[in-house]
């Protein structure tokens, strides 16, 4: 009976430890995260964003936030643990273990004389001659004299020290810390146990894995369907007009999959009337154009109308069913747009250049969707080259407001941003007719708008000048500045109902020939990652150049400082084209703000090859990339080519990856900066 009890308590200890092991670290992690989260608010604090409810933390919400399933589970488990500890401490009976030293009141390893002394002292106390109490007699015979014997007899003392028992090695009793009822199983219950174990421990995880695999095989690593990517790839054209980008965008398989209900027809008709002016229909033969519009695939019609409803901020007219689709559409949009940009800048022609025009078009569409500003607002009007779109992203700004302030010669968005706070407040309250609170909100948003600077260098690493066919490294520091001093921040987008982070696209392009030479997404959200990435890239570069450890240390420290001040390092490699001077532009486009994109133009001078075709042939781009891999990972066995590698899309992906791998090696900027590549950076804006 005692053994069974002991077994139960051991089982409880087992359970307790198994609970405690994951629970304690997890709780600590949660607490740390909770503490760090409270530190900073990085979202826009204007009342529009506040009302959108994305960041709201009312008391009710906080409670509901706190009482999520995982938090409740944690608390429950802690309670279970405390209860278990309490139970084990109090309910388990002490097993009597023979420990002669403690019986004699000595430290383990006491000397012979000490043992004798102690024995004599105890005998005086407990010896039956001295102490008439029968319990004392018992204690003396059972424990004291036995302990004395065990310790004084050399054989039994050695046994005790070796095996923990004076009689020598005790027989081993093995057991498993499981409750009794689980251990004596036989017949039917044993079979059920076996089935249960096989089912829960082997088959269930397998089933889950298989279901997961079959479900997610449709998606790429970025949670976008393969089908979508191939559609985008197919429809992407080198000179896709910004107005046509939307037609490509809505062809995503995710959107085509959304249900088309019969009951949606009527609301969609209504919506069509509301957004008709935005649909690029030819006014001359409006009838046929309309008919053509409705003849498209019903999903496409629906998506286009929903997006237009979003852009014109008419979403309040939607029926509940459509509203659900609308939200789903917006939730997927940033992801899909990002993929669309990537497809646009995929290396296409033999030089490995992507297309500029569709890329900028997609990014503009992304800006419009995030800010819910109609595409038509981008059209230049009345001495304003960029249209009224940037103004419309500000709270309380309508076309009328823009017209009003235009009368005061404030036409470009930049002019509004550059005004002093007082002037702007005066302008907004007196001319535009906003209240003081509203003007303050506008100020808050304007403070949030980032301004970007790009410092770009191109060079052939460790060589003088750039020659035809060189592997040129681009080395760009993108610095972000906001008036309120934040670096990582969420954009102001009250009409976009989901969490959205700012992303920037750095495109190195030849605007005249529509070529994107290099492209890279830049994010300012995560400083720690950026620091490790930048320092690693710098380190690898320096190592490849054979710099000493001290030089590497200095360069890395500089880079880390720069990242901390709000810059991000972007590096990339490309192959120098034919000789001549190339007019390049580096675009830094934001995917969520309108009107904060920067362009920097510079000239890239490519010289003629000095040693004509050094030693024979010039390998193709693909071969180069493969060879480079080989050098870095010499350990690997020969790389077999993929057999059934026919999908052209994945081919391109591979190229992109190789390119990505190639980056990370850049010459020490300071030393070779002056070389032949004339870089006159100058801002267009």
């Amino acid at each position, binding site marked *: 009976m005692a053994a069974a009890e*002991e077994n139960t*308590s051991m089982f409880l200890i087992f359970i307790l430890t198994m609970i405690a092991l994951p629970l304690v670290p997890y709780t600590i992690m949660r607490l740390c995260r909770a503490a760090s989260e409270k530190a900073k608010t990085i979202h826009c604090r204007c009342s529009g964003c506040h009302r959108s409810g994305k960041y709201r933390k009312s008391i009710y919400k906080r409670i509901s936030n706190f009482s999520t399933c995982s938090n409740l589970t944690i608390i429950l488990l802690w309670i279970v643990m405390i209860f278990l500890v309490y139970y084990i401490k109090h309910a388990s009976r002490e097993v009597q273990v023979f420990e002669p030293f403690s019986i004699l009141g000595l430290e383990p390893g006491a000397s012979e004389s000490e043992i004798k002394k102690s024995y004599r002292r105890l005998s005086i106390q407990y010896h039956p001659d001295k102490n008439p109490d029968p319990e004392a007699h018992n204690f003396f015979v059972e424990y004291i004299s036995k302990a004395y014997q065990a310790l004084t007899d050399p054989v039994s003392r050695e046994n005790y020290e070796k095996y923990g028992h004076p009689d020598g090695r005790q027989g081993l009793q093995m057991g498993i810390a499981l409750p009794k009822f689980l251990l004596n199983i036989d017949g039917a219950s044993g079979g059920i146990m076996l089935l249960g174990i096989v089912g829960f421990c082997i088959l269930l995880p397998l089933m889950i894995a298989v279901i997961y695999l079959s479900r*997610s095989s449709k998606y790429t690593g970025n949670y976008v369907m393969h089908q979508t990517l191939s559609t985008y790839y197919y429809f992407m054209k080198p000179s896709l007009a910004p107005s046509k980008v939307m037609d490509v965008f809505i062809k995503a398989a995710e959107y085509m999959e959304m249900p088309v209900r019969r009951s949606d027809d009527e609301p969609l008709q209504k919506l069509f009337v509301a957004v008709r002016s935005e649909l690029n229909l030819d006014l001359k033969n409006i009838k046929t154009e309309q008919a053509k519009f409705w003849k498209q695939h019903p999903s496409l019609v629906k998506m286009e109308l929903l997006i237009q409803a979003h852009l014109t901020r008419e979403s309040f007219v939607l029926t509940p069913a459509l509203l659900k689709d609308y939200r789903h559409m917006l939730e997927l949009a940033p992801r899909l747009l990002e993929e669309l940009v990537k497809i646009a800048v995929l290396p296409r022609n033999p030089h490995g250049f992507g297309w500029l025009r569709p890329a900028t078009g997609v990014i503009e569409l992304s800006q419009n969707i995030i800010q819910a500003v109609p595409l038509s607002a981008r059209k230049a009007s009345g001495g304003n080259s960029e249209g009224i779109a940037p103004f419309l992203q500000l709270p309380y700004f309508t076309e009328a407001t823009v017209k009003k302030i235009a009368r005061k010669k404030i036409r470009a968005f930049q002019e509004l941003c550059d005004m002093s706070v007082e002037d702007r407040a005066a302008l907004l309250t007196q001319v535009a007719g906003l209240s003081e609170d509203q003007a303050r909100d506008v100020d808050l948003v304007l403070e949030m708008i980032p301004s970007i600077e790009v410092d770009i260098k191109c060079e052939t690493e460790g*060589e003088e000048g750039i020659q035809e066919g060189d592997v040129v490294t681009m080395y760009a520091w993108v610095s972000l500045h906001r008036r309120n001093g934040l670096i990582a921040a969420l954009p102001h987008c009250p009409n976009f109902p989901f969490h959205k982070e700012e992303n920037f696209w750095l495109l190195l392009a030849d605007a005249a020939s529509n070529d994107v030479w290099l492209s890279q997404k830049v994010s300012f959200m995560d400083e720690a990652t950026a620091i490790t990435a930048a320092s690693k890239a710098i380190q690898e570069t320096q190592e*490849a150049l054979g710099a000493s450890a001290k030089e590497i240390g200095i360069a890395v420290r500089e880079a880390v400082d720069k990242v901390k001040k709000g810059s991000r390092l972007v590096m990339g490699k490309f192959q120098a084209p034919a000789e001549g001077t190339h007019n390049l532009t580096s675009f830094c486009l934001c995917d969520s703000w309108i009107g904060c994109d920067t362009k920097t133009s510079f000239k890239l001078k490519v010289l003629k090859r000095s040693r004509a075709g050094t*030693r024979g042939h010039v*390998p193709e781009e693909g071969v180069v990339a493969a060879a480079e891999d080989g*050098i870095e990972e*010499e350990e690997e066995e020969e790389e077999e080519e993929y057999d059934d590698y026919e999908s052209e899309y994945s081919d391109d992906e591979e190229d992109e990856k190789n390119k*990505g791998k190639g980056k990370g090696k850049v010459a020490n900027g300071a030393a070779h900066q002056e070389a032949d590549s004339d870089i006159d950076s100058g801002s267009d804006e």
Partner: protein
Amino acid sequence: MARGSSWALDLLRPLASRMPSVRRPDREVPFDHRALYTGLSVSVFMVCSHLPLYGVRYDAMGADPLYWLRSILSSNRGTLMELGVGPVVTAGTLFQLASTSGLLRFDHNVREDRYLADGARKVLALVIALGEAAAHVLLGMYGPHVGALNGVLIVLQLVSATAVVVYLDDVLEKGYGLKGSSSAISLFSAANTCGKVFWQAFSPVTVNTGRGPEFEGVVLAVAHRALTRTSSARAVVATLLRRHLPNATNLAATFLVLLAAVYLEGVQMLVPLTSRDRRGRRGTFPIKLLYTSTMPIVLYTAVVSALYLVSQLLHYSRLGGTLLVRLLGVWAEASHAAVSVGGLAYYVTPPASFAGDPVHALVYVALMLASCALLAQGWVVASESSARDVARRIADQRMGLPGRRDGATYAELRRYIPMAAALGGLCVGALTIFADMTGVIGTDTGIMLAATAVYNLVKSVEKEDKDLERR
């Protein structure tokens, strides 16, 4: 492919061309899928290495003569994984040897040839498994009287378990596994060792040696003592240092060895390279301190276990008392396994303590270090990664030291590679000795293998993570 010359491949052709094989994925498998496939394969392997064989009487099994080999072959005695990855490794090595020596000739660029080679390797692995399993049964690994039916059943089980391993290996190799786990063999052996360490830390098995039940797992035992005994501190310390069961020092030593191995794995020197063809293209060739990785200790263990096997066979054979046999090793029966008490076998066995027999300890250390360094040197040549081979490969890729002639690469590499190999071998040897002395959980070799495998895996996951972010 020159058809006439490879009679060996032709011999295997009828079977090899019919072996099913895993199809390569059309496009790159996303990271989470690869992680899942890797996890599934490892768990299948783990389940197999805990399923007992049917038809074996466990009380009839004597001492384990293959104990030392188990950790490198990740085999578990008396389970389906009795043979572990042994047949697969052997088949791979044989194939490699045959193709480099020209016995088998096939063209890697011809798809049909590649399929055939793939199938042939599988057939070879299964044949070896059949042979090994039969040998196990016939030589009495499962007791002298297994019976004909049981014997056949055991052989069938072992061969089918090997087939499972072959296909798990195929899955991981064909691009469904994580990048760092390109060889399933190291992954499985790492999983095996890690499983052992985990078990020793958290085993719920209780043992009663007359002082009340105690947990086998260290962490559980400590929790048990801390929660139930009244005089906590001393009892906890006593539990931490207990001798009869795995104790905390073993666990700590295990982690120490793991950390040290991972650290050593990361020490490297980079040789900067530039392209000869295209200006601006640069790369580095890393010369790792553990240039041959854990290979020396694997080879050493293989040699030692072969020595044990031969010596034991001879000792218990009719030649028992002769001088030569005694020089090889003298064996005595201990409670669970035969123990060497003299001869060469005694001196390559790790000593229980340094003080017990200093000569034994010194000879052991010297033998270990010297053979590790030598084996590392040898492996550099055998695996075609010597300075000359590397220099040739670099030159083939039209790379070279910046500002130097092609010949300089070889000179530069020759300065470092032999040294790195020898030094790396010494380091691995020293670490293994440390592992032996402190009594790490599992075997020393197993821990070293696990450390490097896990390190490579983590490294590749990190790299993929970075690539994923960039996309």
